[in-house]
């Protein structure tokens, strides 16, 4: 093709990159103000920034601007000014000044922070803005009388940072303040722990034998009790609450033995101090609580910007355009009633089941069913919620309310109410159950032995509590929490994001892997396009690309993408005509160019292969030149990942909502055609997982869209594949970046290694416990010994688990 280029310039292609977004200019190059831009959007953002003296933005090394959403249209945010929507979104308002905290998923670098905090330079109505980058949120203070909320949203959209506003924002506000409470608890525990240790120092060295020192000793003990009280009743309260809840539910969780140990140490210490028989073990007590809290904090620290709990509400818009007596207004979708006429624009989600009023619509159900190609619907057809219109705006009459629509019904399935996190099944919990009973037996035996041989109640009681103190299940709990906490951050480092620690354990145990097809193992935005027929001349390629660029049909868009080196022509196509479902044609000078189905270009051939690929025929001046065969492109990592999983002995299945394509290729990958299932509805996918589980399989479901939501929820581990983790993925246990799919077998191996580390660490703490127990059983556990053993054991465990998990991760991830 290059040879036929007639341009006088050298054949070496110069790479033009957009000054604003940094992407190579694919479709066209717009020279403007001595810079080059890839699209009108980028150029507009540049103009806005230049007008406001904010070009410093481009001086940042990592500056890579966003081009504004092409789906934006005038009035998109009008609903934000509705009186019953706005108060639910605002964080604060006193009538004069308001504040809003918006999620901006497109925020990605330091120049984004810089620009978003300069909003007050862009509009006088904004008084200030602060970015929280890990959460990808910007908090904007503004004067509602100078700038309306809708105008603020438009301003952000105009510079490429469209705020993401969904039904979830309006329906439920989760004021997440647990993080602060945890920090208070940790701070207080640490404070008391250090001070109690200092005040206990004289006890460790048997100081204070004179009568004057006696007063000091009383003072120190009293201070210790005062310092320990907030730790015991505030910092440790979570353990007691959780243990009590479990006991009332008639089961033992991991917090029950911890609570028992804490209570016995606390009461023994109080008894010893009040009866002046000893100094108690308050230093060990507060120390254990401090370490336990750190462990839990470490384990529960997750990714602020990634949400694992999205349901349909996160995808649904807040409001929709509704026709009332011929006038278009905006209505919150919760107020949408049967009979309302709504207007759905290009790429907008249909929020409720409806009947089409406009003559014709192309509905893209990829979001719900995984079907890659949009389907045509005609006037009077029922359209289910969750589809997206592609093309011009259409009018529909609402059939059912949003909450009763077909799509939202899926969330009524039992799978969504069942809690997956069963903390009783964790390794630590099961181990703890045996451990606690054995410790109780040893303690009782010690007690009876001393009562029987020495007939001293005091000695027997001291030994009894000493056993409970040394054998506190804290070390065991620390093993699990620190290992899992470190595993989570290691997984994050290798760009595999897990919801919580329980997901690691479940991942380590899976034996079956089920893949979804569209979007999961195929690339959503790319396709393999090959031209079959006589080679096209450069001129013809320009013609085809220009014509295809006029159409909004997905196949046309793919065609445009597959001809990146062809520059769009500025020549005007005349008599442009597009018939949905058939094709498009236009006049190019004297030639008539046609793109579309076989029938559109006037041939009747149909040869077998069309199951595997879509075809776009090209005809120039009535002469058919050939066709573009467009097939979905599989992720290049897929084969490697699947082969490696099969070698590791996992059962593999494919569940696709799409029609059966590429059966031969997929069956060689997956083993046999009996492992491939096509045309699966969302509820059938869920049922399939349930069936596997009934057969005793533990399933990892790999999916991407809402159509997999049920299966992701039902499976032991639901893994969502996303090309941008900050984008939106359905409720799941883990998120993986598409390009890391090849590493899936390694991630599973790593999770298994993590479980082994926990077991080894259990063994280690058992050794330590046996040493401590020998002191305790023989009645020799002095406070100083306890005060040394406790932190030493905790530190050893933390060091061991951190080191071992890092080592294991490096070994597993090595290529």
């Amino acid at each position, binding site marked *: 093709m290059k040879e036929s280029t007639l341009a006088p310039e050298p054949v070496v292609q110069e790479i033009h990159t957009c*000054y604003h977004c940094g992407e190579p200019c694919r479709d066209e190059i717009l020279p403007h103000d001595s810079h080059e831009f890839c699209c009108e959007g980028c150029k507009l953002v540049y103009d806005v920034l*230049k007008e406001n*003296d904010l*070009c*410093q933005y*481009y*001086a*940042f*090394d990592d500056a890579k601007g966003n081009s504004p959403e092409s789906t934006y249209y005038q009035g998109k945010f009008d609903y934000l000014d509705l009186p019953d929507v706005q108060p639910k979104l605002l964080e604060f308002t006193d009538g004069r000044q308001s504040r809003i905290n918006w999620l901006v998923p497109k925020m990605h670098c*330091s120049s984004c*922070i*810089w620009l978003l*905090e300069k909003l007050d330079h862009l509009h006088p109505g904004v008084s200030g803005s602060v*970015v*929280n*980058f*890990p*959460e990808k949120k910007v908090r904007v203070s503004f004067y509602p009388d100078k700038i309306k909320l809708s105008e603020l949203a438009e301003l952000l959209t105009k510079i490429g940072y469209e705020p993401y506003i969904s039904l979830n924002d309006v329906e439920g506000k989760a004021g997440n303040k647990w*993080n*602060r409470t945890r*920090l*208070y608890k940790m*701070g*207080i525990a640490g*404070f008391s722990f*250090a*001070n109690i240790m*200092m*005040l206990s120092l004289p006890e460790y060295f048997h100081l204070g034998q004179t009568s*004057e*020192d006696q007063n*000091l000793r009383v*003072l*120190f003990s009293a*201070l210790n009790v005062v310092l320990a009280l907030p730790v015991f009743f505030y910092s440790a309260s979570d353990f007691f609450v959780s243990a009590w809840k479990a006991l009332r539910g008639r089961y033992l969780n991991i917090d029950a033995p911890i609570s028992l140990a804490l209570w016995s140490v606390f009461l023994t210490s109080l008894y010893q101090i009040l009866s002046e028989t000893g100094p108690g073990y308050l230093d060990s007590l507060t120390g254990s609580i401090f370490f336990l809290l750190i462990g839990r904090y470490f384990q529960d620290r997750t990714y602020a910007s990634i949400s694992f709990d999205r349901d349909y509400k996160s995808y649904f818009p807040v409001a929709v355009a509704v026709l009332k007596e011929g006038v278009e207004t905006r209505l919150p979708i919760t107020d949408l009633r049967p009979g309302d006429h709504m207007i759905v624009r290009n790429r907008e989600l249909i929020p409720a089941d409806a009947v089409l009023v406009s003559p014709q619509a192309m509905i893209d159900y990829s979001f719900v069913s995984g079907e890659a190609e949009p389907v045509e619907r005609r006037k009077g057809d029922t359209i289910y919620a969750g589809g997206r219109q592609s093309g011009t705006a259409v009018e529909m009459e609402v059939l059912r309310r949003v909450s009763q629509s077909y799509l939202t019904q899926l969330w009524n399935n039992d799978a969504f109410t069942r809690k997956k996190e069963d903390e009783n099944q964790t390794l630590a919990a099961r181990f703890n159950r045996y451990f606690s009973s054995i410790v109780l037996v040893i303690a009782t035996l010690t007690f009876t032995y001393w009562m029987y041989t020495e007939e001293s109640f005091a000695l027997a009681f001291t030994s009894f509590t000493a056993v409970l103190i040394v054998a506190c299940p804290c070390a065991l709990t620390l093993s699990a929490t620190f290992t899992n906490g470190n595993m989570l951050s290691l997984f994050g480092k290798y760009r595999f994001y897990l919801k919580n620690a329980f997901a690691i354990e479940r991942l380590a145990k899976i034996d079956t892997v089920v893949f979804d097809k569209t979007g999961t193992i195929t690339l959503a935005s790319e396709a393999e396009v090959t031209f079959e027929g006589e080679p096209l001349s450069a001129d013809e390629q320009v013609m085809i690309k220009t014509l295809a660029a006029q159409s909004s049909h997905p196949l046309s868009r793919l065609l445009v993408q597959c001809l990146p080196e062809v520059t769009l022509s500025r020549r005007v196509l005349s008599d442009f005509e597009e018939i949905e479902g058939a094709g498009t044609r236009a006049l190019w000078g004297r030639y008539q160019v046609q793109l579309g189905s076989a029938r559109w270009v006037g041939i009747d051939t149909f040869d077998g292969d069309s199951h595997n690929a879509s075809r776009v025929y090209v005809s120039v001046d009535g002469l058919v030149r050939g066709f573009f065969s467009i097939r979905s492109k599989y992720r290049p990592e897929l084969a490697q990942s699947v082969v490696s999983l099969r070698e590791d002995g996992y059962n593999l299945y494919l569940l696709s909502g799409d029609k059966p394509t590429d059966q031969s290729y997929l069956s060689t990958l997956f083993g046999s055609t009996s492992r491939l299932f096509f045309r699966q509805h969302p509820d059938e996918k869920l049922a399939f997982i349930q069936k596997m589980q009934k057969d005793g399989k533990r399933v990892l479901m790999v999916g991407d869209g809402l159509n997999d939501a049920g299966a992701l929820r039902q499976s032991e581990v639901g893994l969502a594949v996303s090309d941008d983790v900050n984008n939106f993925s359905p409720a799941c246990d883990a998120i993986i970046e598409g390009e890391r799919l090849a590493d899936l077998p390694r991630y599973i191996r790593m999770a298994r290694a993590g479980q082994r580390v926990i077991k080894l660490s259990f063994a280690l703490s058992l050794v330590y416990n046996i040493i401590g127990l020998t002191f305790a059983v023989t009645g020799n556990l002095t406070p100083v010994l306890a005060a040394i053993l406790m932190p030493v054991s905790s530190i050893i465990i933390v060091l061991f688990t951190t080191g071992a998990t890092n080592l294991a991760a490096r070994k597993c991830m090595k290529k």
Partner: protein
Amino acid sequence: MSALFILIGFSLLAALGFLIAFVWSVRVGQYDDDYTPSVRILFDDTTPDSKAAPKA
């Protein structure tokens, strides 16, 4: 040894001061975002004149 009574009191007060400082810092949100401030501090405060914005 009676000096100890006073010294212990002072040492506890000092420690309590730090605890209060910690609680205050959590309350005003210093721990809510531990990344953005590290980026923000490197931004120049000066507004450059509109011509001087060459790409680095």
